[in-house]
């Protein structure tokens, strides 16, 4: 889910940092610029990994700072499509289930990618998987806030966000622009067996065998499914 991206930039070191070692000043400056920011089509920048090369430093007329061409590698959060990640449920809404990883919040499972059939419980503000039981009834599995959840990355969306303009002081009448662009969004899916809230699969292994409908399991094996990782019969050929 993390990658190293190789980037090149001209780093400006202001005179007050001349007392530092050049490499240290450059590292700080790169981190100042990139840490916790989304780079378009690259991902969420976490931290500098290492410097690859440092070019000659130049001084430009009218500016006391030095400018240095630097090639460096940066740790970037950019899960590949198809990756499986474990996160926590942040909230549920009509648009789907929002997931957080702690450092990254913009992950959404749209309703079409939830387990089927699911419904949105208006009173509880939670999505519910209507798990079908053998006798034709259904068992409601709630997706509560804070529950750990395993999901597959099914898509990503980058959006160019322009800098926020100066605040408009022209009287209170000007409508506030609440439209916030999300620079990097991950679309996730949990409509596969094994994905979704972790506790579903600890307890529901047995039932899932039937639900998958791939059949052919003998009853004894199904007895052993719970908990035990070795000899787990959930695997089918």
């Amino acid at each position, binding site marked *: 889910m993390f*990658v*190293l*991206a190789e980037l*090149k930039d001209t780093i400006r070191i202001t005179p007050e940092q001349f007392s530092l070692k050049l490499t240290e000043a450059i590292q700080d400056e790169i981190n100042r610029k990139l840490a916790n920011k989304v780079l378009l089509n690259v991902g969420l920048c976490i931290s500098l990994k290492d410097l690859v090369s440092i070019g000659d430093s130049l001084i430009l007329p009218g500016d006391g700072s030095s400018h240095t061409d630097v090639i460096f590698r940066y740790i970037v959060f950019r899960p590949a499509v198809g990756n499986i990640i474990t996160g926590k449920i942040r909230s549920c809404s009509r648009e789907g289930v929002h997931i957080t990883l702690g450092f990254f919040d913009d992950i959404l499972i749209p309703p079409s990618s939830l387990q089927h059939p699911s419904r949105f419980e208006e009173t509880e503000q939670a999505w519910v998987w209507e798990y079908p039981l053998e006798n034709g009834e259904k068992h409601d599995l709630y997706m509560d806030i804070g529950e750990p959840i395993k999901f597959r990355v099914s898509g990503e969306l980058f959006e160019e966000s322009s800098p926020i303009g100066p605040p408009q002081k022209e009287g209170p009448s000007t409508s506030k622009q609440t439209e916030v662009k999300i620079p990097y969004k991950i679309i996730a899916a949990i409509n596969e067996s094994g994905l979704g809230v972790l506790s579903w699969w600890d307890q529901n292994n047995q039932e899932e065998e039937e639900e998958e409908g791939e059949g052919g399991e003998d009853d004894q094996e199904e007895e052993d499914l719970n908990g035990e990782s070795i000899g*787990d019969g959930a*695997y089918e050929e």
Partner: protein
Amino acid sequence: MEIKNICYSPLTNFEVLETLKTVSKKDTKKKHGLRNLATITYETLQYLEETPVKSQTKESITDFLRDVSQYKLTKNELLMIINDPPSTALHIQLLVEDSEERLTEDQVNEILVLVSKYLNIEES
């Protein structure tokens, strides 16, 4: 800013954890304007330290890779297994493409044993 290579190489969560640990130590100096770095490293560290990655070491990962090489998993699959060590056969099914055709039931169980031996030490 020039992007030379978007994906120079993928990283395991373990490598990220190790790097961030050194970063968070260095930052005690509280330099001006590095608050973003402090925030993101703190949050990422918190996330990673809740996962089994915390108990991994360089040796345990190389040992795992050596022992698991006989099952002919792709690099990407191995990366996912190391980042999110599977504890049940169902998880392996999710992580390994066409696992039904490529692995026998016994092999899956052998991989699970290796995973709990090297990668998921706490839970086993």
